[in-house]
């Protein structure tokens, strides 16, 4: 399981199936985590995704145990800002 933060500030979590030198990514069984200050984290099912490397800001390895222990209903946070160049 990996967590991708995209250049426009979205957070996508999925299983990393492949990548290349341009950091294009293949994510399986992916879902987007939509953070908002008004309500808890909303999880949107995306399925199989190919993310172009340009749009990737960060790839994080998700610790499953920690992740399962998180209370997504209770997390309130502003969505991430897009990358400014």
């Amino acid at each position: 399981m990996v967590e991708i933060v995209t250049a426009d500030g979205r957070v996508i979590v999925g299983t990393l199936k492949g990548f290349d030198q341009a950091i294009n990514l293949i994510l399986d069984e992916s879902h987007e985590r939509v953070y908002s200050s008004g309500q808890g984290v909303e999880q949107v099912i995306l399925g199989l995704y190919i993310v172009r490397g340009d749009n990737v800001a960060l790839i994080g390895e998700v610790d499953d145990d920690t992740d399962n222990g998180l209370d997504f209903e209770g997390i309130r946070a502003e969505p991430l800002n897009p990358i400014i160049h």
Partner: protein
Amino acid sequence: MKIVDGMVEGTRGRGGRRISWVKNVKDSTGMKISECCEILLERERCICGTLHSVDQFLNIKLTDINVTDPEKYPHMLSVKTCFIRGSVVRYVQLPADECDTQLLQDATRKEAAQNKQR
């Protein structure tokens, strides 16, 4: 996931060993690559962690990371190891007390002199 180590500019002497960019950082800062560093992304979010490796695009791998202000940014609570695309990094801050500026300057001069000879 194996990221190819970066290369130092120019060619190496005959029979010389390949020098990776990371080795260069090690030599010039005189600190182990496992020492801490801080990375500020362009979105003004700070991630502290142990520098694992850097490649030629300045893509950075960090282990044992911490996001400063996790209350405001809970997006990476379950992430301990991450890969940051070089293009989104604003700067890398090495702890001042781990940086030997004298050694750094010497290493820079040495490298400049070597490049001049070629």
